[in-house]
């Protein structure tokens, strides 16, 4: 056990040579090269506030889930970064670096035409429908977790889904409904006055998914649950 402790304590060589580009709540993201290719290394670091067993089990589970969901998406033809390597001792995932991309969040915030926004949300709806039809629940849908490769034509919006750390596999409409609910809340709180735009996203989702009626029904139920919470236990 002493050996694995020292493995965790020392920073792996590849991280020492990498360039830190972002520190989130759960992971640090670095830029590096791996086998001659540009990669992004996502390192899930230890959260000191958690009991060590909670931390270890949770971190390992999230790393595994992330990789599994990305692979499942890719097999179904949904755009997600290529996974090159996973280091389970340090909880690092080596992913394809989506160069010159911008997050959908930043893209919307930088000001776009209404027509472009409409086309964008329709594309998002389509991609989410594909993902849910594969029974992949993202678990943390926000506009920061969708990347846009700009410069593409109006009809060819190139969207890449990232950050599958909270994802899991489920066929239940309830889970898909909650997934959309998480996006709705994140979308509306980040981008003010976009209710109609989000409606369009959902319409596109419904049109693209074979299993959507049950999911939308569950979404409506979950929305109500939030508003009319019973305070009695």
């Amino acid at each position, binding site marked *: 056990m002493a050996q694995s402790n020292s493995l965790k304590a020392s920073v792996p060589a590849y991280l020492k040579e990498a360039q830190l580009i972002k520190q989130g709540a759960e992971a640090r993201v670095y830029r590096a090269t791996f086998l001659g290719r540009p990669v992004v290394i996502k390192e899930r670091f230890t959260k000191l506030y958690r009991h060590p067993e909670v931390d270890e089990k949770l971190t390992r589970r999230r790393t595994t889930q992330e990789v599994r969901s990305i692979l499942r998406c890719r097999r179904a033809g949904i755009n997600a970064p290529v996974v090159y390597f996973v280091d389970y001792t340090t909880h690092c995932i080596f992913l394809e670096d989506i160069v010159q991309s911008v997050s959908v969040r930043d893209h919307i915030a930088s000001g776009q035409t209404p027509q472009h926004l409409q086309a964008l949300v329709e594309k998002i709806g389509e991609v989410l429908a594909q993902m849910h039809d594969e029974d992949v629940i993202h*678990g943390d849908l926000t506009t920061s977790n969708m990347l846009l490769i700009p410069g593409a034509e109006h009809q060819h919006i190139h969207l890449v889904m990232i950050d599958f750390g909270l994802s899991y596999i489920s066929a239940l409409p309830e889970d898909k409904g909650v997934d959309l609910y998480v996006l709705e809340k994140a979308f509306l709180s980040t981008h003010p006055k976009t209710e109609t735009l989000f409606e369009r996203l959902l319409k596109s989702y419904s049109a693209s998914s074979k299993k959507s009626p049950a999911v939308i029904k569950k979404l409506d139920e979950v929305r109500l649950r939030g508003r009319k919470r019973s*305070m009695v236990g």
Partner: protein
Amino acid sequence: MTVVIGFEGSANKIGVGIIRDGEVLSNPRRTYITPPGQGFLPGETAKHHRSVILTVLQEALDEAGLKSADIDCVAYTKGPGMGAPLVTVAVVARTVAQLWGKPLLGVNHCIGHIEMGRLITNAQNPTVLYVSGGNTQVIAYSERRYRIFGETIDIAVGNCLDRFARVIKISNDPSPGYNIEQMAKKGTKFIELPYTVKGMDVSFSGILSYIEDAAHKMLSTSQCTPEDLCFSLQETLFAMLVEITERAMAHCGSQEVLIVGGVGCNMRLQEMMGVMCKERGARIFATDESFCIDNGAMIAQAGWEMFRSGHVTELLDSWITQRYRTDEVEVTWRD
């Protein structure tokens, strides 16, 4: 100079508090405690409140050294909470307001917690974790609303703790959560429990049913002690709460955390949140049990803010409601 009296009784605590321009003049309270293994029901809770509220009201005035004429406004909890207790307290507030000829003000219970936390700690613009038996929300102020960034999609964390306490028959005196906290300190073995975070939200009903089941199985075969279960439950629940708070902080770019609500008294939760804050270079704010736990002064404080910015509740509008979202109120007293 503005003096506001606040009446609070949305759950099993009945409190009356008086605030004068940010100074807490009095804050007496009583708690309805049920025998181990039993929760508190609305009808009996209301009966308890009815039996003590006038005594507590008199105490509040006496401790503050004030008479009814000195009061400028009567604030009460409009909701959310349990129906019968809320009605009991509202009836007294309405009667007293009419007797004394003072304006009435219906206050949102959650906002009461937030405003009291802000007053006591002087936190400027914190991410608020509001955790109690009835509520679990992560709130941040933005453009005249206390916006809910994350919350429980089923039961509150305090409710999860209270119901677990019932299963293993932990005493409800002074509160089940307090006793779980003391037992947890003696726990040594960690039992893995379901951990459920969905985006910015959390879910507790799964972990509750799991641990209720585990309690029966593992305690009867002596695989672990009740202390171990308390310890494991706290570590898991609180890690989930710290995680969603941290996500909200990252989302909002916030450097302050304020913990309010009864579960906020828990020192382990405060400790864990403190470690998370230290890692981010953020500050943590918390209050002691006189203000964490439901009390009258917090309603008075929120009422004071509302009254000073021009709010008043007409008698016809002084109903109560069990369901009252924190973001429904327009926070006109902040910019």
